[in-house]
């Protein structure tokens, strides 16, 4: 239903902090890196519920939602976000997970449906490249 983004149109990214964790250094650093890579970035601020994040993703018509979690609650929150996006018909939105993610949980997040996991210390250029290189139509193909 949505009009297809024109080739070369910037990727729109929602950087979000779900849950109660207040550590946003990584989220802001990644947001600044994406801005410099030419993305349009919206940062939600702290303490957002999954419902608020999905509503913002819909309102802002984003291609990507990046969530950052450092409290250890990443599996619970990622699952909840993906379920809610599907329920709202936003399956085409890619979900990236960042933060303090132990090795053992990374495969699990990908299995749940995250497009990529970028744990603490991930290379900023790699993150930007991954986002910028997402195939343009794949971004909103759910419509």
């Amino acid at each position, binding site marked *: 239903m949505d009009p297809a983004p024109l080739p070369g149109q910037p990727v729109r990214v929602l950087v979000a902090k779900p849950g*109660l964790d207040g550590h946003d250094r990584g989220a802001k650093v990644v947001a600044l890196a994406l801005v410099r890579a030419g993305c349009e*970035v919206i940062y939600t601020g702290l303490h957002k519920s999954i419902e608020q994040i999905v509503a913002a993703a819909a309102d802002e018509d984003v291609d990507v939602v990046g969530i950052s979690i450092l409290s250890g609650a990443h599996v619970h929150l990622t699952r909840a976000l993906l379920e809610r996006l599907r329920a709202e018909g936003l399956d085409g939105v890619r979900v990236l997970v960042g933060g303090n993610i132990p090795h053992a949980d990374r495969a699990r997040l990908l299995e749940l449906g995250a497009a990529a996991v970028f744990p603490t210390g991930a290379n900023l250029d790699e993150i930007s490249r991954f986002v910028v290189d997402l195939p343009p139509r794949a971004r909103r193909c759910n419509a």
Partner: protein
Amino acid sequence: MAADKSELRRVVLESGIEVAPVYGPADVAPVDPARDLGEPGEFPFTRGIHKLMYRARPWTMRQYAGFGSPAETNGRFRFLIENGQDALNVAFDLPTQMGLDSDDPRAEGEVGRVGMAIDTLRDMEVAFAGIPLDRVSVSLTINAVTPAILAMYVAVAERQGISRARIRGTTQNDILKEFIGRGAWIFPVEPSIRLIGDTIEFCAREMPNYYPTSVCGYHIRESGATPVQEIAYAFAIARAYVGEGLSRGLAVDEFAGRISFNFDVFGNLWEQVAKFRAARRLWARLMRDEFAAQKPETLKMKMIAGGGGGGLTIEEPENNIVRGTVYALISALSGTQTMALCCYDEAYTIPSENASLISLRTMQILAEEMGLCDTVDPLGGSYYVEWLTTELEQRIVAEMRRVDEDWGGIVNAVREGHVQQAVARQAYEVERKIQSGETVKVGVNKYRRAASSAGEVKLHEHCPQAMEEQRRRLAEVKSTRDAAEVRAALAEVREACAQKKNVMPAMIRAVKAYATLGEIVAVMKDVLGEYREPVRL
């Protein structure tokens, strides 16, 4: 043979100060020893706040601990005390920090995860069972909900037969830094500062041995700030709290000496040592010249230093034991009163018992094997250290002036998000320098091994059963308390907030009635509102 000076690589510290290869008498000519250094224990306290420093008594060792249920946390407290730790530093879980009960849907997945869960006074009674609160000094890492948690602490102490006047300890209670880094805020900026004023006033009048506020440059630096920004913003914040105390009709010497500081140690060794020496001198001058403080206690900058989480690495975690050792050395050379170290596994997980013990042992070895307690301020008089101390002091003063002149003071700067933006941009620059290799992190961007050693750390097991027990205890407390008294006490909290009266008496009544933290905070939000975060990238 010897390289020409022009061929040497440039050395520029994080604070932007360029370092020469050699320093000598000419570099310290502007430093007047009587005016700028003084004797240890005397104005301006550059050399330390006590005459004999560690020769009389080593620094206090206070590792951060707390996880899961109050009973589990009580076990870790006893373990640390049995192994020679003389003070506690309590971690609370995120729902507690945000004023949500363990049975709140928003707390799902977070109960007991990064600290202990506190719902009612019953939990505090369990957590501190068998720990005498007049002898063990307890630091409570709590901010937005400090009035309620402090009230519970008072109630537990009184039940142990300890009068308010004898209670020792500290609440972190620095909300302005929560808006800059760490993020555990609830209420808008102005009422949040008023609540800090309430605790400062209450302690000044009733709990003279308590430190109601520990102003944290620590989290500001952990969020990306330079050492200069760390001290400058912390001092700007502390000034705001001093102003709040004065507005209650207290004299500066009645309360400002009970404001302490929490600072970070990582990065360049010399820059950190000079930072602390400069900070002590500047704080003493500021309190004397701006607030006309007279009592030495008010002029002395007391601190907990250490931590250093921002300097530790996920890669090759054992290297963090070495880094932690040097952070402890820096803290001791800087004349800290209290020390806490991040543990080597802390980039991954809640520290294991073994990792906590290694941090405690690090401090004990430095204090008792290495001669760090023998002589006061052993680096005092060093050409380099004294020159650098003066450089840092000047830059801190300049950054504080920027806060006032460009941003309209710290309260406005936080409300509008200027400090947050400056710190986030600095964090981005730091990350870029690490990723480009300009800032060396051994094992991360230099000498990195092909096979990653990541994942070798044993992760703290989050225990869902303990959480069920937590919720059961909450339900039991709710069903056995006097509901009418709870309602009346909560109405008093509401009234105190609405009338801008000191909330502490109403808080103490409410917690003694076993009102839950969530109930108390809901009433406060209703009256005070909630903070709306200014988002500036």
